[in-house]
């Protein structure tokens, strides 16, 4: 069965898995995992140039810019002003590289360092400003359905609720909130993309998120920090596909008691 592509604003994707590029032990390992994951979109962060760099290597030397659409994030920003500045800087670099990712941003406006949970007010402010500046804003948020709705109303291209705190590996802690987010965001707009961003720990977490009806999953640590990253990259790719297919197939309702799978007639006497 051929699935329809995932449409994120002007971007059309065949893979519903978006992976980050952080925390890998080596750039070579990162490059291999990106390839194995089958992802078409990869996230990066914007940081100060190290003015003294013995090795002189840049992550961009390890990324095939013709193959991947780069999604720059505003990770590490704790207010709207910084997030907007970082988004502009990221766009500036991608424009210079002529990468298709030059028109979008993964917006993160964080509340505190301990939880890395989003600051909802700063996130709303930054979304409004970046939309005004022509960005396609993919916005990291909590799983609160009302905030999610407000972000969509402000023009976010995709709302991306956290399953659980960034890098925590706890999976989707509140599937009911995600269900409500999906219902609200897709009301009268069934193709509006909702992506689970953050908290995924294992392949089953990815499959579970997709089975809820999410349009995609964004993850990083679960691959980069596991024991065998390349094997996990493959597991994540498969889990995303399996979860999506399971969702499309439409699961059976859960029942308290058994229903026999084998015929109940024709038994021997």
């Amino acid at each position, binding site marked *: 069965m051929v699935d329809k592509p995932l449409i994120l604003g002007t971007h059309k994707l065949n893979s519903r898995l978006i992976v980050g590029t952080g925390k890998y032990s080596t750039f070579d390992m990162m490059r291999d995992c990106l390839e194995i994951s089958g992802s078409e979109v990869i996230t990066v962060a914007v940081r*100060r140039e190290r*003015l003294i760099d013995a090795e002189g290597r840049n992550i961009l030397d390890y990324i095939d810019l013709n193959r991947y659409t780069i999604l720059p994030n505003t990770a590490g920003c704790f207010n709207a002003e910084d997030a907007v500045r970082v988004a502009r800087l990221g766009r500036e670099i991608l424009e210079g590289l002529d990468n298709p990712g030059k028109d979008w941003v993964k917006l993160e406006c964080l509340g505190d360092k301990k939880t890395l949970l989003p600051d909802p007010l700063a996130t709303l402010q930054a979304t409004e400003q970046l939309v005004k500046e022509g960005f396609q804003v993919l916005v990291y948020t909590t799983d609160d359905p009302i905030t999610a709705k407000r972000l969509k109303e402000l023009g976010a291209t995709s709302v991306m609720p956290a399953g659980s705190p960034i890098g925590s590996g706890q999976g989707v802690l509140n599937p009911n909130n995600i269900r409500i987010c999906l219902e609200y965001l897709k009301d009268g707009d069934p193709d509006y993309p909702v992506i689970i961003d953050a908290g995924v720990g294992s392949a089953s977490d990815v499959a579970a998120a997709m089975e809820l009806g999410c349009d995609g999953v964004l993850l990083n640590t679960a691959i980069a920090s596991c024991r065998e990253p390349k094997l996990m990259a493959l597991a994540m790719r498969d889990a995303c596909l399996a979860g999506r297919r399971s969702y499309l197939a439409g699961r059976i309702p859960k029942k308290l008691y058994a229903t026999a799978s084998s015929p109940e007639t024709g038994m021997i006497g």
Partner: protein
Amino acid sequence: MQVVINGEPKELDGPMTVEGLVRQLGINPQFCAVERNKMLVPRRQHGEVTVEAGDSLEIVTLVGGG
């Protein structure tokens, strides 16, 4: 001429453009973006915008991130 680059005070020999500064620092201009006093300096203006005493500059690139 005293400026601040990426949070660190730095002494520059004399007036220079953003383009000249990036070159002097040995940074690949294709992989970086520059802010001067919290305002983005678009790449096409790097050859025109002059760095002045007391400026605060941010020169950034892309790194691994989630």
